[in-house]
């Protein structure tokens, strides 16, 4: 089980309570598909991904980015039990979606950069460390049920 200090819990709670899911979610997935184009392999049915402009304007991608970001709410609400909380989603990503777990790290890095762009001076090294720790725990949990 992962240990969280009071300061870490507070940083995470604060970050998410001020989060603009619609904006950040859309930007994160869009950016991931542009920066790591091989990730587009999972979005064949989502419409036009032909170039960066098309990806940025694709409403299906934007909506899905928001959905993914809300997926982090589960960890937020169950910080002391993230592994079990994501067991079901891990099976989904492995058995049904067939997503290579390396991709979770890619999206996680991109999300960190989108948040860094958004929060300015509030995104201190401490906030970055806590956020990356949080994402790493989620990423690990999502990869747990792969076999």
């Amino acid at each position, binding site marked *: 089980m992962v240990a969280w200090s009071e300061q870490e819990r507070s940083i995470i709670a604060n970050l998410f309570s001020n989060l603009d899911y619609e904006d950040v979610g859309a930007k994160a997935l*869009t*950016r991931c598909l*542009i*920066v790591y184009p091989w990730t587009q392999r999972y979005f064949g049915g989502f419409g036009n991904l032909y170039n*960066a402009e098309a990806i*940025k304007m694709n409403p299906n991608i934007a909506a899905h980015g928001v959905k993914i970001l809300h997926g982090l709410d589960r960890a937020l609400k169950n910080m002391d039990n993230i592994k079990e909380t994501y067991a079901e989603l891990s099976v989904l990503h492995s058995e049904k979606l067939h997503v290579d777990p390396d991709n979770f790290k890619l999206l996680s*890095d991109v999300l*960190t*950069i*989108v948040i*860094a*762009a*958004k*929060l*300015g001076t509030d*995104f201190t*090294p*401490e906030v*970055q*460390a806590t956020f*990356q720790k949080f994402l790493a725990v989620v990423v690990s949990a999502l990869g747990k049920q792969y076999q």
Partner: protein
Amino acid sequence: MSDTVRAFWAKVSPKAADIGAGALCRMLVVYPQTKTYFSHWKDLNPGSAPVMMHGAVIMEGVADAVAKIDNLTDGLDQLSQLHAFTLRVDPANFKVLSHNLMVVMANQFPNDFSPEVHVAMDKFLALVALALSEKYR
């Protein structure tokens, strides 16, 4: 990629030393294992003199790489020798520093660090890392 990197670099280079110091500082805080390379510094805290100075040194290397973007392997030959035989930095750490450089770029230039600039910079820093580890084995 080259044009995008050069154009973005032209915009941010006045702040290069800040970017370098910021990235190094973040790396030491977020990835504590990287502190092992700096055990000879008295002070590893954000804003300390060694961190600020070394951040600037690193960015001089990056500036050099931008100038030699069309032939990084030859252009960074000396730096590669330094990293291979003297510093012996585990190449995995190049990725870590690159990530933190981009976090700082996004943080300080949110309107300029677009997805297009991001992909170009990510690719460029990966190529720099590759050139730096050329001489390792």
